[in-house]
C-alpha cells in the first residue's frame, strides 16, 4: 500500500500512536498508548475526547483525501456509548471501519478497547474532509 500523508494532529491533541493493521477497504486497527507522564494523564482523561480519538484513528486508516491529505474536522457523533474512562498507563486498541462516504463527508464506526479486551467506547463519527475552519467573510 502507498504511504500516506502524516496526521496533522500534534501533542497535546494527538490521541493515537500508530497503525497496527490497515486494509484497502478502509478498516483497521490503531493503537493509543496513554502514557502516565503525558499532560492529559495528569487529570482524569475527559471521556468526551474519545470520539476525537476515534476520528484520528479513522483518518490514520482512511488516509484522507489524496489531494488535500488528512485535513478536516469532526462534524458529527452518533450512537456513541462510553463504558469506561481510560486511565494513565492504558494501552488502547481502536478498531475502525469506514461506514460510508458522500462527497467530502465520511462516516466511520469503531470500537475502542483496552489491550486486555475490556471495552472502552463504541460508536460512529462523521468527518468533513478538506476544510479546517469556516471561511471568514471579513478577511
Amino acid at each position, binding site marked *: 500500500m502507498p504511504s500516506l500523508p502524516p496526521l496533522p494532529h500534534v501533542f497535546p491533541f494527538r490521541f493515537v500512536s500508530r497503525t497496527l493493521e490497515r486494509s484497502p477497504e478502509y478498516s483497521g486497527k490503531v493503537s493509543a498508548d496513554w502514557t502516565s507522564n503525558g499532560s492529559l494523564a495528569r487529570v482524569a482523561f475527559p471521556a468526551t475526547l474519545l470520539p476525537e480519538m476515534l476520528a484520528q484513528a479513522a483518518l490514520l486508516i482512511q488516509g484522507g483525501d489524496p489531494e488535500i491529505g488528512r485535513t478536516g474536522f469532526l*462534524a*458529527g457523533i452518533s450512537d456513541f456509548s462510553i463504558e469506561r474512562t481510560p486511565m494513565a498507563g492504558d494501552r488502547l486498541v481502536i478498531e475502525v471501519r469506514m*461506514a*460510508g*462516504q*458522500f*462527497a*467530502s*463527508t*465520511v*462516516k466511520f464506526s469503531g470500537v475502542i478497547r483496552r489491550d486486555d479486551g475490556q471495552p472502552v467506547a463504541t460508536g460512529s463519527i*462523521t468527518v*468533513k474532509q478538506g476544510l479546517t475552519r469556516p471561511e471568514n467573510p471579513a478577511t
Partner: protein
Amino acid sequence: MDDAELKPRVKELIVKQLKLDIDPAAIADSAPLFGESADGLGLDSIDALELVLGLEKEFGIKVQDEEVGVKAFASVDALCDFIRSKAA
C-alpha cells in the same frame, strides 16, 4: 413500485434515518430537502451521507457519484424517481 407505496416508504426512511421529530406524512412531495427554503427540511451534507447509507440499507442502492446524489436528493419526488430508475 408505484408512488402510493414508494413515497410513504421514502418519507419514513428520511425521518427514521435522520432521526427527525416530524410526521413523515408532513413532508411535501416536491419540497426541497436541502437548503434554506421555508417549506423544505433544511438538511445538510451530513444528512446527505445518512440518506446515502439509508438508501443502501433500505433499497440496496448505492450512491457513489456526488452529482447524481445532489439531483436525487432534491425532493421526495426526485428521490422516488431515482429509486425507480435504479430498480428498473
